[in-house]
């Protein structure tokens, strides 16, 4: 009950946000946060639910971004079609590279995926005829107007893109919720907890892991495509290993293996570095220290910690007194 009220309030607040806040800079940060929440959800699927830490999601984001830009500019496709197809491309790449990579586990898998991300990055930098290299890829268009006949919604402003990205985020959340609650989601959790046991119980774990990795790649590619058409200009920098690490950070900060954790974490990883601009010189030092401190004191992330607090508080309220007061 309280859950649904909270969910509805969050959606209403998200829809109202650009009408209430007219400062372009804040709307810009909100769009970036939502794009980043999608990347964080992709990390959440493979890391939070399946237990495999992938440091390649920034790379898949880059594949989606450049694929969508190339399809819409060089191949002349409509932007909507490009945004719809590029997650499929990123997902297929994930499928192909995931098949060999998922044969290894733990730290090995993390390092292999990190190497994959570096390969993607190096290709983006060096394949100049196609990607423009470090000079960048300019002129990625915004989506065409949607509508029939005389009636149409123009998507030509930051605010309009905000709603496109918000709709995309809601779609991603719905897909994630569907996956997590299905049989597949339960199998993934079983693999996270004990892969050997899951296999002993007759589950072909490799199929499910490959599905999770490909779906995560597709989600990251989707986020990349949205990013490309929102920014209008691409360069390899936002798709380096740093981006993947930031996404992992978002998931861990918010709480991995929960649906809402990556949302909170995605928001924080975009906003915190901006808020700390007040202390420009020490900004990233403070950010780094915050990470260390959060990890030491809240090892499961913010959302589970908060949920735990609320549950305790309720329990205390229902029994009439807080446990601390019961002491003589």
């Amino acid at each position, binding site marked *: 009950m309280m859950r649904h009220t909270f969910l509805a309030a969050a959606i209403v607040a998200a829809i109202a946000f650009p009408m209430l806040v007219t400062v372009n800079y804040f709307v810009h940060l909100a769009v970036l946060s939502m794009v980043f929440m999608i990347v964080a959800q992709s990390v959440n699927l493979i890391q939070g639910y399946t237990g495999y830490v992938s440091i390649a999601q920034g790379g898949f984001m880059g594949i989606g971004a450049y694929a969508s830009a190339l399809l819409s500019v060089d191949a002349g496709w409509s932007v909507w079609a490009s945004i719809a197809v590029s997650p499929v491309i990123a997902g297929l790449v994930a499928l192909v590279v995931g098949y060999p990579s998922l044969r290894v586990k733990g730290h*090995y898998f993390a390092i292999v995926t990190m190497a994959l991300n*570096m390969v993607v990055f190096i*290709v983006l930098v060096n394949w100049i005829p196609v990607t423009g290299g470090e000079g960048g890829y300019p002129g990625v268009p915004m989506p065409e107007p949607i509508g029939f006949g005389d009636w149409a919604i123009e998507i030509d402003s930051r605010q309009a893109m905000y709603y496109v990205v918000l709709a995309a985020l809601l779609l991603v959340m719905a897909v994630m919720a569907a996956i997590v609650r299905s049989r597949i989601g339960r199998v993934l959790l079983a693999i996270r907890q004990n892969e050997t046991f899951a296999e002993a119980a007759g589950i072909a774990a490799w199929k499910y892991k490959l599905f999770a990795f490909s779906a995560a790649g597709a989600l990251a590619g989707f986020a990349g495509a949205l990013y490309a058409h929102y920014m209008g200009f691409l360069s390899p920098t936002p798709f380096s290993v740093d981006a993947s690490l930031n996404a992992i950070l978002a998931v861990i900060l918010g709480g991995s293996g929960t649906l809402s954790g990556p949302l909170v974490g995605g928001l924080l990883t975009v906003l915190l570095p901006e808020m700390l601009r007040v202390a420009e010189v020490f900004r990233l*030092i403070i*950010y780094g220290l915050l990470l*260390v401190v959060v*990890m*030491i004191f809240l090892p499961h992330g913010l959302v589970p910690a908060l949920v735990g607090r609320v549950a305790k508080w309720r329990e205390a309220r229902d029994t009439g007194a807080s446990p601390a007061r019961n002491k003589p």
Partner: protein
Amino acid sequence: MVDLLQQVFNGLVTGSIYTLIALGLTTIFGILGIAHFAHGSVAMFGGYLTFFLMTSVGLSLVPAMVVAMVAGAALGVVIERLAYYPVRMAPPINAFIIALGLTLVIEKANLLMFGVDQVIIPTPYTRVFDIGGVTFPELRVYVLAIAAILVAGMTWMVQRTWMGMAIRAVAQNRATAILMGVDVNRVSMFVFALSSALGVAAGVLVGALYAVAPGVSGGLVIKGFAVLILGGLGSIPGAIIGGIVLGVTESFSSAFVSSGYKDVISFLLMIAVLLVRPEGLMRRGTR
């Protein structure tokens, strides 16, 4: 043939630096199961400090390097105590996130303390030896020699001293090592001190050969991990062989294929090794 030998020499030199980085990473991993991502920025800290000691304090290269290695060792112990020790019971990904946070902190602190410019550690060694058409720049020969001495010293320490035996014991079976009276806390502090000192040495060598600059540390630590994968996590001979293989592969691919894609070739090699021999080149498959 001369070309080949030349590339083998070049590869050995860069490979020896990778080995120094990887030795630290691999012992830390063996003891604590931590992917110590901040190792590269500790190395860069040492490179900057050496440059500072030489240009502003007026020390010559070797004393400056020794002081920097001691400072690096102290930094390593501080990192172990303040950041990794509190999460030793948490899942490994938490320690990894902490490592990322530390990387940010140390990297930016480097910029604050030493400025944003890239610096090259000045050395007087400019002679070039020529043996049968293969050129051996004096500096590169010394880099290789220093790295070899440090690696040999580390191997000796691990094989022959009490502390080395304790390190191997904890890596093999932590619980039993504790029962046998090994003080795990002391061992892990010692490992961090030693590894960080080796990392600093690598940073100084990089600074003398190429440059110390913001952004070098990330590449360095990733190469270190690549060496670990090639050689096998936690294995010291693996780190040596892996470093040489990676260095030689890199110099061959940049000389004969393309310098832009040399890292792609090394990573493909790493992935191939991982798929054929997941336990690494030098490790007998027991786990």
